[in-house]
Structures are given as C-alpha cells and as structure tokens.
C-alpha cells in the first residue's frame, strides 16, 4: 500500500513539475516573440525616422525669404522646398505621403501602410512601413493650424510636428484574429519650417 501511495504522489509531483516547466516554456516563447517584436518595431521606426529627420533638418535650405517653404500641408502628407543637391537652382520639391493600406495587404496588421517620399514629381520611393503618420503645423505664436492648411496660410507655418508610429506587421503567435495585439513604437519631432525665420 505504501509503495502504491509513493508512486501516486510521485506522479502528482512529477505532473506538477511538468506543468510548471511547460507553462514557463510557453511564457518564455511568447515573451521572446513580444520582445523581439518590440525591438523590431523600434529598429524599423528609427531607420525611417532617420531619413525624415535628416531631410526635415534642411527644410527651407536655399529658399528665398520671400518664398513659402511649405507647399502642401495636410494631415498625413506635406511637401516642402529645399535645395537637395546644393546647387542653388533649381530648388527641389520634396513630398512625403502615406499610401493606402492595400499596399501592405499581405501582412497580418491591417493598419500598416507605406510611407512614400517623392522628389520633384518623380516616381515615389518607399521609405518605410508605418501605421500612423500625422503632421501638425504650428504658427510662430504656437497655434496649431487646421488641416489641410489653405495655400494662403502656408507662409504662417513656423514649425512642423511629425508624429509617426510603427507597429509590428505580425502579432505574437498566441494572439491571432481580432485579439491580435501588435508591438508599436512612437516617434514625434518638431522641426522648423525655415531655419532662419527668427534669426
């Protein structure tokens, strides 16, 4: 009787151990997927942000004081003048805009879309995948302008605030369908429409 009881207890204890180890293994695998996703979106965000950041830094470069730097100012697209090749003439027009979600229909995430960069009306270049690309236009007095900003008000834009969010195209393995949660990372930066406007 004692031997049988020992075996039963051993089975129970062994079963508990097995359960604990399997659960820990599951949690480790899921967390690994989540953390890996988090890191991936941070890297994707930074690589896209570096392109935008570098370009917005030169917004209005080489543009005459009498000319408005921003040519188009909408909530998720904008175009501005800058001298990309630094030859003084002609001044280049750079446009950023987001494409439709159908461009990335093959991914699990339904909100991701491509961010495009277009120079002088040439075919656009895809510079990254984003789930949010929002642009605010702020006057010298700190007022946020309604979008799209009418052409007559474009010269009032003093700073441009770009907000960008990148989400993982795929959810962690145990989260599928409507329950899916995607890792995300946010970037927000304010840039001057013209570097010398207050100098």
């Amino acid at each position, binding site marked *: 009787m004692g031997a049988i009881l020992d075996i039963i207890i051993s089975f129970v204890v062994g079963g508990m151990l097995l359960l*604990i180890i399997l659960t820990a293994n599951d949690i480790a695998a899921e967390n690994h997927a989540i953390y890996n996703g988090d890191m991936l979106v941070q890297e994707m965000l*930074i690589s896209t942000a570096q392109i935008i950041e570098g370009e917005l830094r030169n917004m209005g470069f080489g543009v005459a004081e009498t000319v408005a730097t921003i040519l188009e100012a909408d909530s998720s697209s904008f175009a501005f003048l800058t001298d990309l090749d630094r030859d003084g003439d002609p001044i280049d027009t750079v446009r950023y805009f987001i494409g439709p979600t159908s461009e990335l229909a093959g991914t699990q995430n339904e909100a991701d879309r491509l961010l495009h960069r277009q120079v002088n009306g040439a075919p656009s270049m895809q510079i990254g995948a984003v789930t949010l690309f929002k642009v605010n236009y702020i006057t010298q007095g700190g007022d946020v302008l309604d979008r799209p900003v009418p052409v007559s008000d474009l010269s009032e834009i003093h700073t441009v605030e770009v907000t960008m969010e990148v989400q993982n195209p795929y959810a962690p393995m145990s989260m599928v369908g409507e329950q899916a949660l995607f890792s995300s990372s946010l970037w927000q930066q304010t840039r001057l429409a013209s570097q010398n406007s207050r100098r």
Partner: protein
Amino acid sequence: MSTGQTLLTIFAFVLLSTTLISFYRLMGATGDDISSGQDGILATTIATSYMEIAQGLAFDELTDTSNAAIGDPNELTLPNNLGYDNVNEDSIHNFNDFDDFDGFAFDKEAGATGRAYRTQFAVNYVDDDDVSEISNARTFVKRMDLKTWRIMPPTPRADTLNLSLVLGYFHFD
C-alpha cells in the same frame, strides 16, 4: 516515502522555485530594457525638437533687436542675466533668443502613449577654445544643456538623457 526522500523532494522544489523566480525576473528585466528603449526614442526626439527651436533663435537679446554686427562680447547679455528677458517671454513660443531657455523646465506628453517627459534647460557662456568649460565672462559661444527624463508614468528606473547644444554668434554683412 522516507524522510530522506521527502527532504530530497522539498529540496528539488526549492531549487525549481529559485530557478523559476530567476527566470521570470530575467524576463521582466528584458521587458524593462525594451521599454526603456522606447523611452530613449521619445526623450531624444523631444530634446531634439527643443534644440531645433533653440537653433532657430537669435544668439542674444541684443542680436535679436539689432541687425548691426557685434564685435565686442561685452556688449552681450551679462552671464548672470541669461534667461528670459521680460515677463512676456514666458513660453517657448515667445522666446526670441537662445538663452531665454535658461532655467526653464517644460513637460511634454508624447502623443497618445500616456508617457510624459520633463526637460530642464541651462544656458551658459562657454570658453571659445574649449566648449566643455563654462565661462564666467561673456564670449561669442553659448552652450545649452538639456536634461530629459520621464515623469509619467513614474518609474524608479528613469534614465536621464543629457544633451548639449553649442551655438556660436555669426553675422552676415
């Protein structure tokens, strides 16, 4: 089950518990590191945004109000008077020169993340030959030191981002 076997089982459980605790702690720490990566991104972009605005301002109150070239640094604002120049310069949108930021601290919420960051500013004249040295005399070079850290949600492990921006006086004739 003999006493020896019972003790062995208890020891095995203690060992397993210790291993599991270490395992979950490590996983939590990894999560914190990933989260602090996002903090780093947001703190950097916020600080860079302030730096961008500061770079677009005049070097000094004097150079903002006068278009004449300044040849003598002693004409500039006294080191003790660096900071906002009048009561109207109480917000970033009303600043007109680089050192108006001195002594201010601004809070900014980062989008809809629920995170907020505080940035503290200090502006000083620095040695022309060594911008790491603060100068008690007026020079043609100023340095802005920014400290940015997360205030919301509060965290005991908040890292502070320290950045500096050096601006020299220049004038186009």
